[in-house]
């Protein structure tokens, strides 16, 4: 074996364990889940094949359909709001305000907390009679009412508020890093031309930050698909089933309701949009590399 060929083998040898774990752990588990979703498994996985019956049952289930609906509404609002607030925070901090470090810490702090802690804090803040509702009424606004968390139509939006509050700090940190990477010459040139700052941000800086935005979008999108603990901590899916989400449906059926088959079908359905988002991305990348 020559030195050259050995040096070509070494990186592959180093990558192999990760590749094996990833393919067994992710691909294997995915295929296994798909297989289980075609069986009548209850508490234990079983080989009793029943075709697509679990999927049929899944889409016959009102709670599942409502969960998908909730996830779509939540996802759109959460991603847009986190992105907008995070970007604006980054722009403000980028104006070289005094005490920048303090603000950065304050804004990033929520991200250091778990969703469960965030959820519990907001649950308390939003409970009618206590928290915000009580405090504002105590200030003399007798008719003020903030009862979203116990309302059928608004409960899911309280989850949006809490999770945006948590995630926008991270978006800010990433965006700020991007902004700091912008060449100061661009600003000088824009100032000489007399272009207002907001137009520089909107038309020059933001397009330049596209790779950062793509990273942020990817992070936020995974947070959407995973949404579980914030809902459990804040509303437990209630009132009624108003704020249920797919991940909670899956967890409930896996662990509490002893229906591994139905839970697996749900997990596969949840995987489909992720793949649908990922496929065009991978395709674009491969096109770029080929070019």
């Amino acid at each position: 074996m020559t030195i050259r060929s050995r040096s070509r083998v070494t990186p592959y040898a180093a990558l192999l364990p990760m590749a094996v774990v990833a393919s067994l752990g992710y691909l294997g588990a995915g295929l296994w889940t798909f297989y289980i979703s075609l069986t009548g498994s209850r508490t234990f996985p079983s080989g009793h094949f029943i075709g697509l019956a679990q999927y049929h049952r899944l889409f016959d289930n009102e709670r599942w359909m409502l969960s998908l609906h909730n996830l779509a509404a939540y996802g759109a609002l959460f991603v847009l709001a986190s992105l907008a607030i995070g970007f604006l925070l980054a722009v403000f901090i980028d104006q070289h305000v005094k005490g920048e470090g303090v603000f950065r810490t304050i804004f990033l702090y929520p991200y250091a907390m778990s969703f469960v802690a965030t959820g519990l804090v907001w649950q308390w803040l939003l409970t009618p009679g206590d928290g915000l509702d009580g405090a504002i009424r105590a200030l003399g606004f007798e008719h003020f009412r903030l009862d979203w968390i116990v309302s059928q139509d608004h409960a899911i939006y309280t989850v949006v508020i809490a999770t945006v509050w948590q995630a926008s700090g991270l978006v800010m940190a990433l965006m700020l890093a991007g902004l700091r990477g912008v060449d100061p010459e661009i600003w000088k040139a824009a100032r000489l031309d007399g272009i207002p700052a907001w137009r520089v941000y909107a038309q020059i800086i933001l397009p330049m930050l596209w790779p950062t935005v793509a990273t942020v979008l990817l992070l936020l999108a995974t947070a959407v698909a995973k949404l579980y603990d914030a809902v459990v901590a804040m509303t437990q899916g209630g009132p009624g089933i108003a704020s249920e989400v797919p991940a909670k449906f899956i967890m409930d059926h896996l662990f509490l309701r002893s229906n591994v088959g139905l839970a697996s079908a749900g997990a596969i359905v949840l995987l489909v949009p992720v793949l649908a988002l990922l496929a065009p991305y991978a395709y674009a990348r491969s096109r770029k590399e080929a070019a």
Partner: protein
Amino acid sequence: MYGTRRWLLGAWLCASAVAAHAGPRAEVIHWWTSGGESAAVKQVEQAYRAAGGTWVDSAIAGGDQSRAVTINRIIGGNPPTAAQFNTSKQFLDIIEEDLLNPVDDIARRDHWDQVLPAPIIDVIKVRGHWYAVPMNIHMQTWIWYSKSAFAKAGIAREPASMDELFADLDKLKAAGLIPLAHGGQAWQEILLFSMVLSNVGGRDLYLKVIRDRDQGAIRSDSFRKVLVAYKRLQAYVDPASPGRNWNDATALVISGKAGVQIMGDWAKGEFIAAGQSPGRQFGCLPGLGADSPYLIQGDVFVFPKTDDPAALRAQKLLADVVDRSAVQLAFNKLKGSIPVRLDADDSRFDACARKGMAILRDPQRPVGVAEVYLTPDQNGALQDVLTAFWNTNMPVERAQNSIASALRY
């Protein structure tokens, strides 16, 4: 002095070491973690020690959590000696996978066929074998009421029908009180529904819907009436009820701010802890009318399969200890439930528990709660529909259809 103490300590250490080697050693997973519950399970532990065994306590807070751990350990090949489950279909799959040891000899010796209520037997006896030792019975749909609230609203006697209950709730509302203290969580809503179904629909309809999952009965007009009555109760609940815990709802009744709560007999522990006593500050009604069905459930111990002779000995001894009337009495007095053996002496129980024991001995009245007849999955699907119906403006027809489809699988 110092020397004596050291000697005593040494002797004690030796003795406990010997005891650990000599007697059977049982690791027990259970979820009796609240104050009253852990005091109750201590009684079983002491009895097991007195019988020569060593008790290794694995308490895991939360029934769901505890059952998940038990099932994972059984699958993983490291099962506990014994584990708690509810008297329900929660462990049916484990029996069907042949992962539990039967307790037939104890069941035969103590004539379980004669001394246990029928709904309990139906759950623990599978294909002729007994697979669990029942510990206690909870009656889940007691109607608790505050005497002071009833007096304030001018209610002179206990309601004996659903119409009378509605009339009383109206009076409570007129008196400016919360008529029905309700914790707005899905499991409490199915409990409330079960009370309405058994009292308005009667025993036959209850069993047809919950046990037989009879599509015709679910689509019948009498079941529709049940759903309407259930939904009508919602008008008597305060707006802050969604998400509330059961004990916070009980606190409303204790303080006299609310009139009535429908909850299992564990609520009695809250009244007693607040220094109230049955018949004086609060009342307990086992149902509306003299022949209302009595909805029961309870806890059991199961014994995961093992061939290890030491573990088998530990399981046998535990099954024997748990089935003793004296142990069940000591346990249930602290737990707030009642013994599963109908031949137990109940003279030292409070008025509510004695009422319950008397009803239990009438074979016509006890039926199981939904979990007794439905798999966890079916029960959960039913719960989803009921909580959605309770909390939204869902039309009755749609609720009826959704229940039919939830119970079809």
